[in-house]
Structures are given as structure tokens and as C-alpha cells.
């Protein structure tokens, strides 16, 4: 998987491919790690521990702190693979890494996003981005 890291870190796990972009704020419950956006086709699905594969973030700029709160409370995805760089998602993971350095959620952009959506599991490794 050819990945460009926005927030560096190691992660691996089963993918959760989102059919639509997701706003963490109003879209994910940090207490449970499930999607709560009523307009999202994957309402009720758990993101915790998965490699979240989504085309981009969406909507509100409060999403960064909700992602950070998910990372703090252990309900976050293991890592996030995006179709295009998303600063709001990157910031949430970046600040969480500053505050909670033992709980890193790497964020990367996939060079071949459609391929990422067809993968059942992804290993995110900043040292081997072509693996």
C-alpha cells in the first residue's frame, strides 16, 4: 500500500471502508466508537480498532477534537487511510499524538485509493510505504 503519511505511526487491522465521507463531530460517539450520523449509510457501525478507509472528512471543523477524544478514550480507529489529504482529520490525530504519545492513530493518503477500498486489511508502516 503506497501511503503518504500526514500523521506518522504504525497500525494494522481490518479495514472499514466508508461509503461516504464522515464528520467525526456529530458523526461518531467517542464513548462507544460507533457512527451516529443519521444521514450516513453506515449508521451504527463501530470504527474502533479498524483501519478506517474514507474518501475524505466532511463538514464541521469541530471534528478534530472529537477524533482526539476518540483516541484518548481508546475508541478510535487503529489508523485512517484517506483518498485525499484532510487537514481536520490530520489535526485531530496530530494533537492526540502530542497529548497521548502512547496512543497514536496514524493518518495517511493512499496513492491508489480505489485499491485501498478493496483491501480487507491494511498495515500502515511509515518506513515501508510501498509494501
Amino acid at each position, binding site marked *: 500500500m503506497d501511503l503518504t503519511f500526514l500523521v506518522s505511526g504504525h497500525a494494522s487491522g481490518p479495514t472499514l471502508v466508508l461509503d461516504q465521507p464522515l464528520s467525526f463531530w456529530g458523526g461518531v460517539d467517542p464513548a462507544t466508537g460507533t457512527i451516529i450520523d443519521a444521514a450516513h449509510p453506515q449508521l451504527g457501525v463501530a470504527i474502533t480498532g479498524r483501519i478506517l478507509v474514507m474518501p*475524505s472528512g466532511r463538514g464541521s471543523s469541530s471534528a478534530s477534537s472529537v477524533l482526539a477524544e476518540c483516541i484518548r478514550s481508546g475508541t478510535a480507529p487503529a489508523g485512517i487511510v484517506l483518498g485525499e489529504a484532510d487537514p481536520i482529520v490530520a489535526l485531530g490525530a496530530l494533537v492526540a499524538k502530542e497529548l497521548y504519545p502512547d496512543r497514536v492513530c496514524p493518518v495517511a493518503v493512499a496513492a491508489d485509493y480505489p485499491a485501498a477500498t478493496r483491501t480487507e486489511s491494511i498495515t500502515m508502516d511509515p518506513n515501508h510505504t510501498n509494501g
Partner: protein
Amino acid sequence: MLSDADQAMLHGETGPHVALAMRIVTGLAAASSARFLLDISRAHIDGCLYNGQASLDFANRLSGVQVTVPTTLNVSSLDLLHPDLIQSTPETQRRARALMDAYTSMGAQPTWTCAPYQALVRPAFGEQIAWAESSAVVFANSVLGARTDRYGDFIDAAAAITGRAPAAGLHLDENRQAGVVFDVAALSTDLKKRDAFFAMLGLIIGSRSGKRVPAVVGIDEATEDQLKTLGAAAASSGSVGLFHVVGVTPEALTLRDVAPADSPIVEVDGEMLRIARQQVNAGADSSRLGSVHLGTPHYSSNQLDAVLAALARRAVKLNLYVSTGRDVLVRWGKADLLTELGVTIVTDTCTYVTSIVDPTTGSAMTDSAKWAYYAPGNIGVRALFGSMEECVETAVAGHLVERNDQWI
């Protein structure tokens, strides 16, 4: 890429808090492929809304540092003027207050509004600023012609502390050109005068623009409040941080000013507006309405006047909440005329971001596409969308009053 002063901040020469702030700014610069940083002259921070312990941990980590540019604060999770409205636990309220105090102790102004442009600050055309809060971002860029990227939690404070932001996104000329044109010429002039039209158009634009800047043609005039409504909706259903309305917004005197000749065109018709409304309303129970919500984004004094006129001295049977900034409310000066009719005025926060409404009382009605979009996830309340007039009539009657002929 970094100036000497940037390097000094990054290396801790002005203290560890500034170094943390600069790591966030440069981290974002890397994520957004910025080649350098630029000066910003104002900041608007939305990190003062309590989104869990992480938001407080971050603010506390910065404790002791001061912002270096004039900085306003977005809505919080509390209403300090009407504290009895807030239903969250005492512990959550204590943390929310600690978060607010952390930001004011950094020198940010206790404005507590998502619409600081209404009575507090008016960034100039072309001014480089760092604003968070998606509806304020889109207003500053589109209506005022100021320049901010779509900032959010953390980077807002980091920019306010360092006075710097990545030279990327909507700060730059090349990213302010439209990539898609929405043509509403086929719709009636009467429809295009209505606020509800702007809300539904915003939803359509947001969901269809992707990362492209949208331009709208076919609107001859619009009030600032209508443009505020359009932007807030487009920033909810999508990631719109800037839109142009040709002949109305300041960067778009003509279509050619803002859009290449080969830009794709979306022709908006009445059916698209009806579908947008149906999608908002899906899931709400119109037979069991518990409350009505106006003022997302925070109402202007003109909008408060319009609510007062629509009420026409009639008391409400359903709880009617009207959210506005404390600055606007003081300047407006007629709060008593609303409250004596049973209206609940909310300041410093908003009814869809904190615990004010009991979700077991039923669905809600709102004139805000943004409220309808986020309330189900945030507070567990589904919403019906209606015009402000429909919302007021519903609140007065105590049950749903629709006037479909009025706007579509």
C-alpha cells in the same frame, strides 16, 4: 520554508507552549502541502466547545501562553447568561467552564458566538485571518472576502498564539476559483427571496461540490442573513469553505471572474429543492413535536426583529428556542418582548451542541439546515425543516403548521 522567527518559535526559544503551537501549525502545513507560513491578523477559536477531556487537556497544556492577535471565541457548552437552561451533569459543566476559562486566560475575548462578524469584528476584504467554525469560515471568505482556510479545533488556538498559518487552501488566489457552477435561473424570483430557499440551496451545493469551490448564478440579490444561511448549510452537508454568488458576493462581479469557461454547470430545479427538504425531514416524527429551534448560526438583530414580527404578540405553546450572540442581544435590546411570549433565548451556546432539550419530548422543528443536520447525532433529536414563519406558527399552534406554497 520557515522564517527565522518561525524557526525560533518551533525550537522553543519563546517557550514550550509556543513550540507546541508551532508544531501544530507546521504539522498542518505539511498535511496541506504549504510551502511557507503567512501572517494572520485575527483568529476565531472554536475549541472552547467541550468535546470531551481531550479538548480540555489541550487547552490546559497551553496554560500560561497569550494569543498574539485579536481573538474571538465560538459557542461554548454553557449559557453563562441563562445557566438554568443547561441540563448536563455538574461535572461536565465544571469541565466546560474550565475550558472556557482556559481560553479567556490566554487573552481571547469571551464572545461565545459562531457569528462574530455580526456585531463584533468585520475582517476586511483580502485580510488574512485564521477562523474556525465552519459557518463563520464560509461567511468570512464568501461574504466579506477575507481569507481563511477551513480551520477547526487546535489549529485555531495554535494560529492565535503564533500569529501564523500555512500558506495553503483558501488563503491563496488559485484556490478561490470556482470549480462548479450552480445555475438557479429557472427558479422563480419570489422563491429566491425566501430564506428557506437559501438553506435548501446550501444543502444541495454542499452535497454536490466535493472539494470544489461553488459559484451560483441566477440570484440578483441576497441579504447577509440569507448568505449566512446558505453557507452554514453548504458547510454542513459538505466541506464548502467559500462560495461565490455572481453579482452579489465581493469577488464575483462576473462569472468569468471566478470560474473557468469550461466549469461544469448544475441546473437547480424545484424538484432538487423538494428532495433536499425530504432528506432533511426523513426520520422526524411530525405528529410529535417537542420544541422549535431558531438561530443556528446565531441570529442577527434583523432576524430577531423578524421573529418578533412573526409572533405578533402571540404566546407560544411549544418551547421556542432562539439562539443568538450576547453581543447581538445586548445591542438589539428587546429580549423582554420575546421572553414575555414564552420564547426561550439562548446565548453563548446553541441548542444542538449541548444538553438543553430533553430528547424524549419528541422531534424538533428548525429553520436551520445545520441544526437539522447535526442534532440527531449530537443530542439525539430528529428535526423537521421549515421556514422561520412555519417554525413560529408551529410554536404558536402547538402542532405542525406547514405552508408549502410559501416557499416551494
